[in-house]
């Protein structure tokens, strides 16, 4: 049995029996809930301004969590990391704060295969400021066509926002090449790491991007928390997005001075416990052997593909032409079944104890590019093992019979 399973109560108990919906939300790790419970029981106090011992300790725990997340992301300094409520909130923060400096006619480039979280905030910004949204297309198997980027970049391109890993196909974007090409032209790059973060620490320095976002609940942490890393030179000059307490140095009716980053972008009481949980998730993940886990995840992905490829009615929307192990990819895959709708597939598979997700996966433009309305998605995490593949195999056979 996979040794991680014991660290995830819902997996160990069988409540989340064959849990293959990790791209939507991973289960939470015991070291994370332990640290959150400890804070709630023994360390709870508001952060940022208290000077009694409990408050100082709470603040230290909160800032230590920030440092853990910064280390997880490869940031040089913890103050380059801003806590948000998730990847969506982080992208909206950038759209507002960085977007404030953009002018009518400026352009934002996004990938065609993005999650709506990395499309809609930019569309809204475009509407507010009269900007143009430029779409970098994907090819037939869901890969971003990076070679088209040069032609699509103009002297008005002000930001390129792409995902690190697709939540639909598992395709991994070559974010280094994109960042490198953009940097040469002085264009900042935002990477949506929501999916990638559940599969090991990242390194913003070696990627060379300018913004990186992630969500706690997809990396064995709690819900309601995420993070934005931003290059400090950019962060320094950005105006705040939300106003309130904790983000100012001085307020009067003549004017208000804003606090330096990261506090300028964290108005109000932050989700302290959740931030501490995210820090615990980052610490726990940084202690793992990701080379080994990645190999195991790839083998399991291949096994999932082998199961699906046995059946003529099934088409896998696989960005790598089936070769799970040969190219970088996340252990996420989407498939369609001739004559069966994804919701019906998920219903039957769910009845067999296999948790999958069916629908457009908040990536309707990608669905349109594929020419489908919806797919069924299986996504793995480090606690999945061969027993899950066996259950998946059985449930697929049964589903094909029920939905014949």
């Amino acid at each position: 049995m996979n040794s991680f399973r014991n660290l995830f109560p819902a997996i160990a108990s069988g409540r989340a029996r064959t849990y293959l919906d990790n791209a939507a939300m991973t289960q939470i790790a015991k070291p994370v809930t332990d640290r959150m419970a400890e804070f709630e029981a023994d360390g709870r106090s508001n952060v940022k301004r208290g000077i009694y011992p409990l408050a100082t300790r709470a603040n230290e725990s909160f800032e230590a969590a920030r440092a853990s997340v910064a280390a997880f992301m490869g940031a040089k300094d913890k103050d380059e990391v801003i806590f948000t409520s998730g990847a969506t909130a982080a992208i909206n923060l950038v759209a507002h704060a960085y977007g404030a400096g953009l002018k009518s006619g400026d352009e934002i480039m996004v990938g065609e295969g993005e999650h709506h979280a990395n499309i809609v905030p930019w569309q809204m910004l475009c509407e507010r400021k009269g900007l143009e949204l430029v779409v970098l297309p994907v090819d037939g198997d869901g890969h971003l066509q990076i070679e088209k980027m040069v032609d699509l970049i103009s002297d008005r391109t002000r930001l390129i926002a792409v995902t690190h890993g697709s939540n639909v196909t598992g395709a991994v974007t070559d974010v280094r090449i994109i960042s490198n090409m953009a940097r040469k032209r002085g264009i900042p790059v935002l990477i949506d790491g929501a999916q990638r973060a559940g599969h090991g620490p990242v390194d913003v320095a070696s990627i060379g991007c300018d913004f990186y976002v992630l969500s706690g609940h997809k990396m064995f942490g709690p819900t309601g928390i995420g993070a934005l890393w931003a290059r400090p030179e950019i962060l320094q000059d950005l105006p705040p997005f939300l106003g309130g307490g904790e983000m100012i140095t001085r307020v009067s009716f003549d004017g208000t001075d804003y606090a330096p980053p990261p506090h300028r972008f964290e108005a109000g009481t932050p989700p302290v416990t959740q931030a501490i949980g995210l820090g615990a998730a980052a610490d726990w993940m940084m202690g793992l052997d990701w080379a080994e886990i990645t190999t195991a995840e790839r083998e399991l992905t291949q096994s999932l593909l082998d199961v699906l490829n046995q059946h003529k009615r099934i088409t896998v929307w696989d960005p790598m032409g089936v070769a799970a192990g040969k190219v970088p990819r996340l252990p996420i895959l989407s498939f369609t079944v001739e004559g069966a709708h994804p919701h019906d597939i998920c219903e039957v598979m769910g009845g067999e104890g296999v948790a999958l997700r069916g629908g457009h996966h908040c990536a309707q433009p990608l669905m349109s590019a594929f020419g489908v309305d919806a797919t069924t998605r299986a996504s793995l995490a480090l606690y999945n093992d061969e027993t899950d593949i066996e259950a998946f195999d059985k449930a697929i056979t049964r589903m094909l019979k029920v939905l014949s």
Partner: protein
Amino acid sequence: MSAADDIYDAAIKDLAARARNMGRIEDADCSHDADNFLCGDRVTVEVALNGDAIENIGGKVRGCMLVQAAAAVIHGAAPGKDRAVLAEGITQARALLADGTPATGDWEGLNAFTPVQGHKHRHDCVLLPFEAVEACLADTDGTD
């Protein structure tokens, strides 16, 4: 048998297959797209009226088997009837799903959805085509 299989019995499958016969209507008096924003399913309905009578119903269903089957029930029951029959249909569909009240009269076909009553998260699938027709007809209120 798994907990989910009861939904996918022969009656529902048969209805869903019939949804394919629902063609498009070129000169419809109204058309409406209804979306289930949670799952992304979409029903497009087109209704041709003759006074207060429903002459024909057509459209396109992009959704699960339950959405298709419900569209087929409407397509089977409504044409040739007064538009008020649709309000009756949606009332009966809601009652069936809420507490198992059997459907009667023009809407007896709805009884195929009895097993869905125990699957609350799928009730919206059955209701989506009804809501589409309801909204479609509302667009024509006062115009004929």
